[in-house]
């Protein structure tokens, strides 16, 4: 990142600032702007080394408007960076359960409403929202080649993409712009990085399950990923833009590593980091896999066990989705700084350490 001409000290509130992405953004802001004040709003306290620096912590729950209003009554941030949210992982990603939807919607949509309304009430007029590329792609029905901000959204059917889309539209609505709110939304694709336990673990677990010998579909479908540092760069640039020229106000931006890669190659490379290279890989036609997914769903419906394969994951695995980041390049000056291959290597090295620590804990407990 190019150093900006000196910016006046600012106070930035980061919701979800103890989470995977939020904590990394907080750290980057503290590094880059030592004279800024950073407030972390989360249900969990941030790590010690962040608290020791120019930051403070407010414990609040985004799903409770009274909790959020109380938090904002004490602080007047110049900008709110809203990262807090829930990503339904594994089988919950494809859930059609109403209760599960209510839960996701409450955190991602209602939570965003609560934070935005409280921010407006406190006098804050700048807002950066971490949206997601799933606002477009979570319809599962289409391939998205080179999608950009003109690609229509609102078709998402999965809980995550739908809730993020509802929240994004709320944040960027005219109604708020008329009230003087300057807001923008970033739509990262799947984020990987040290500290992530959702994506890497999911793919890593397939080794133990013996499910690395299959490719569903023709294996030619491209997929977007983004390394955490690059996602952080984009967020910091958006925050700086909003606090200075605010040319990003009212806009949404896709962000990715700009290195779409064959979906199944990404898996194979990740497994290779753990020393596993499948001796062979069988290509399973989409239709066969879909039926198998249906069968697995039926079985798990009765047994209640978690399956790796279901119809949703089959759709996810055979389709193409990657974005064109031109808008983020032009307006925010976004350039990914860490390549995807390097990003995967770093993420896996970290996950190996994590597994080793876990193994230690387990053996200590049994001893």
């Amino acid at each position, binding site marked *: 990142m190019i150093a900006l001409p000196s910016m006046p000290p600012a106070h930035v509130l980061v919701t979800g600032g103890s989470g995977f992405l939020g904590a990394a953004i907080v750290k980057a802001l503290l590094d880059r702007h030592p004279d800024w004040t950073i407030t972390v709003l989360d249900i969990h306290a941030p790590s010690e080394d962040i608290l020791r620096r120019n930051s403070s912590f407010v414990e609040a729950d985004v799903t409770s408007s009274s909790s959020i209003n109380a938090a904002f009554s004490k602080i007047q941030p110049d900008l709110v960076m809203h990262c807090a949210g829930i990503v339904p992982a594994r089988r919950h990603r494809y859930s059609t359960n109403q209760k599960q939807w209510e839960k996701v*919607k409450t955190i991602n949509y209602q939570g965003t409403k609560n934070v935005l309304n409280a921010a407006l009430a406190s006098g804050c007029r700048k807002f950066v929202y971490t949206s997601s590329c799933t*606002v477009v792609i979570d319809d599962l*029905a*289409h*391939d*998205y*080649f*080179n999608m950009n901000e003109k*690609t*229509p*959204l*609102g*078709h*998402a059917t999965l809980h995550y993409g*739908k809730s993020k*889309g*509802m929240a*994004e*539209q709320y944040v960027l609505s005219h109604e708020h712009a008329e009230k003087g709110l300057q807001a923008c939304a970033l739509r990262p694709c799947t984020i990987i990085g040290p500290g992530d336990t959702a994506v890497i673990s999911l793919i890593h677990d397939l080794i133990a399950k013996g499910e690395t010998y299959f490719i569903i579909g023709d*294996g*030619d479908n*491209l997929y977007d990923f983004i390394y955490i540092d690059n996602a952080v760069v984009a967020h910091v640039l958006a925050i700086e833009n909003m606090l200075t020229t605010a040319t990003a106000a009212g806009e949404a931006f896709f962000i990715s590593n700009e*290195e*779409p*890669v*064959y979906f199944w*190659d*990404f898996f*194979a*490379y990740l*497994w*290779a980091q753990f020393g596993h*290279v*499948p001796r062979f890989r069988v290509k399973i036609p989409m239709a066969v896999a879909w039926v198998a997914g249906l069968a697995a769903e039926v079985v798990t419906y009765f047994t209640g066990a978690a399956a790796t394969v279901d119809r949703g994951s089959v759709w996810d695995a055979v*389709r193409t989705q*990657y974005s064109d980041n031109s808008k983020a390049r032009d307006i925010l000056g976004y350039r990914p700084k860490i*390549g*995807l*291959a390097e990003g*995967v290597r770093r993420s896996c090295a970290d996950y190996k350490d994590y597994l080793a620590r876990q193994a230690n804990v387990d053996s200590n407990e049994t001893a």
Partner: protein
Amino acid sequence: MPSAADVAYYLFHISELRAIIQWKTWHNPVHERDESKEGPDLKECFRFLNLTSRSFAAVIQELHPELLVPVCLFYLCLRGLDTIEDDMTIDIAQKEPLLRQFHEHLEDETWNFDGNGPNEKDRELLVKFEVVAKEFNKVKEEYRVIIADITKRMGNGMADYAKNADQNANGVKTIKDYELYCHYVAGLVGEGLTRLFVEAKLANPALLQRPELMESMGQLLQQTNIIRDIREDHDDKRYFWPKEVWSKYVNKFDELFLPENQEKALQCSSEMVLIALNRADECLFYMAGIKEQSVFNFVAIPQSMAMATLELCFQNPTLFERNIKITKGTACQLMTESTQNLQLVCDVFRRYARKIHRKNNPSDPHFLDISIACGKIERFIEGIFPTQTPRVLPPGAEQTVAQDSEEEAKRKADQAEAKQDVLYIGIAIAVTLAIISAVMIGAAWFFGARFDLAFAELKKGNLKPPKESGVLENIASAYDAQGHNEL
């Protein structure tokens, strides 16, 4: 005459044979040389062209009349330089000034050179170089300036390279050196040709504003040749693979050719392929700027061949054993596909990108980078020729408001209803099957099937019916006998 091996090969590769026949039968040159209007010197120039070039002679002779002679002479000038550079019998003290001053002789209708060794295959060109100069003086000044400029720069580049004794002894050191060498011998050709095309108004002048595109054209071709020729160059003690690359895999360059280092050698060649492959999208971009069909064919054929050659070299251990090249059938197919339009050439690029992707080995350290490089090609093509399948959002798709509205509740109710329907159908099928099974089993029982015996045997763990005849009767009578005894 085709050899017996060729006949056997094409018997089993009918589609390749078809490609050859198709090319020979259906290919119509866009333009043809009009030999009746050519003087003896020009005829001699074309004879040299056919003598010195296997791959370029045909495409050059089909070029637009405006560029036919300038490009032919441009080629002969560069070939002349190359003949001096390649000749190891010429002493460096003589070679260096020869290379640096070569461009000064282009207009000199008396200059020629017979200092080449007797085994130099193209020595005749230099011995009679005055015919090239005579024709050179007849072409438009704009073209002469371009040809002389490139010849001068290439001669100086070659002289620098030849003088660098260290490089000659140990080969190219860094990737930067390697790309600089490719720039002198191929990137400059790309520049010269592009300037000629634009001067003749047969290409978009914007190509000159994006010099990296024409550079990539030359780099991809030259790098591919260097990769493919590794064995031959090694035998001739010429080293173009940069040390920066191969030293990651072996300590000494020779070790790449040892059978026990095969895996390392393949990893090394993967990295070389990766460097070249990263140029492919810019080559497609460049070709989009060509306005005239014969010029398009001229630039597209070698590019398609290069992509196919890269794929052939990728993950191929034979690369280190002998000279490999694409088959004639493949070449003809590629020529057919490369002499029509950009979309077909894009299809060729995508096809070979996917072939490389399928051969890619996860144990290779550059596995993901190669996958990304293939993805980059696909992504670029997608930008100019978007995929149109039912799986792509239709162009008229409208943005809707993502919300949990009544309409959606209705849609959900419909879905739930559909689900219930499926459930009822399922139950109906199950009931029907049950009734049919009951009827069949009942009928079998009625006609005397001994289910009791079958169950008893199953309980004992005999899952298969006994094979020997007579056993069945024995079992039956045994059970019956038991019953009688109890009575």
